[in-house]
């Protein structure tokens, strides 16, 4: 399915955009994570090693775990390690 992604922090600069769509095989966060890793390997040469593994995936109300389900109806946010304050 196609998942709509919203990007934050360093990821916006890597994609040169704050939104993107991604073809995902499977319906879990882990599948989305794998699909994004494959996309990043092809398109984000400036990606810091290990950064994607530290990114969380979230809806607009909660952070999901790798075993949670994703749906084409729900836009997902990709959250790099946070550095507010």
């Amino acid at each position, binding site marked *: 399915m196609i998942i709509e992604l919203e990007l*934050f922090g360093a990821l916006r600069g890597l994609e040169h955009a704050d939104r993107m769509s991604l073809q995902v095989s499977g319906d879990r966060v882990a599948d989305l994570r794998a699909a994004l890793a494959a996309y990043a390997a092809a398109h984000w040469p400036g990606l810091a090693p290990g950064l994607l593994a530290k990114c969380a995936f*979230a809806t607009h*109300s909660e952070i999901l775990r790798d075993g949670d389900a994703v749906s084409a109806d729900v836009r997902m946010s990709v*959250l*790099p*390690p*946070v550095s507010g*304050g």
Partner: protein
Amino acid sequence: MSNHFLHVSGIAAEKLDAATALDFVADPGFGGATLFIGRVRDRNHGRDVLGVSYDIHRPLALVRFAQIAVEIEREVGGQLKLYIAHAHGRLAVGDIAVVIAAGTPHRDEAFRACRQAIESVKHSAPIWKQEHYANGDSAWGEGCSLCD
């Protein structure tokens, strides 16, 4: 929950303000109020900093701020007014990035609440800092992973 003020400031529209925070947490029954202000510094890790840009996931940040308030209320275990506000967008050196205030009957709870709030905001709120350096470079902060 009316005793929590949860806010993500749009820096273009309004500057963060300590007086607003302190007014919010005042109460005739409260003897102590604490405040933390985080400002943009002119140096970090030995580099000259001209400014900082904050990126925020606004809806998720407000959810997290509300959770932080509930966690602190449980931890402090008594009356509490809490104010959390974070700037969004580009800031210059000296500008206020975050304001936290806590009002409680006694001072120990106010200090604990304020400290716990800033630590939680820094470590778990969906906010990202990009530093802009004097030499033209920019870099995103290292940060804390939100994965378990």
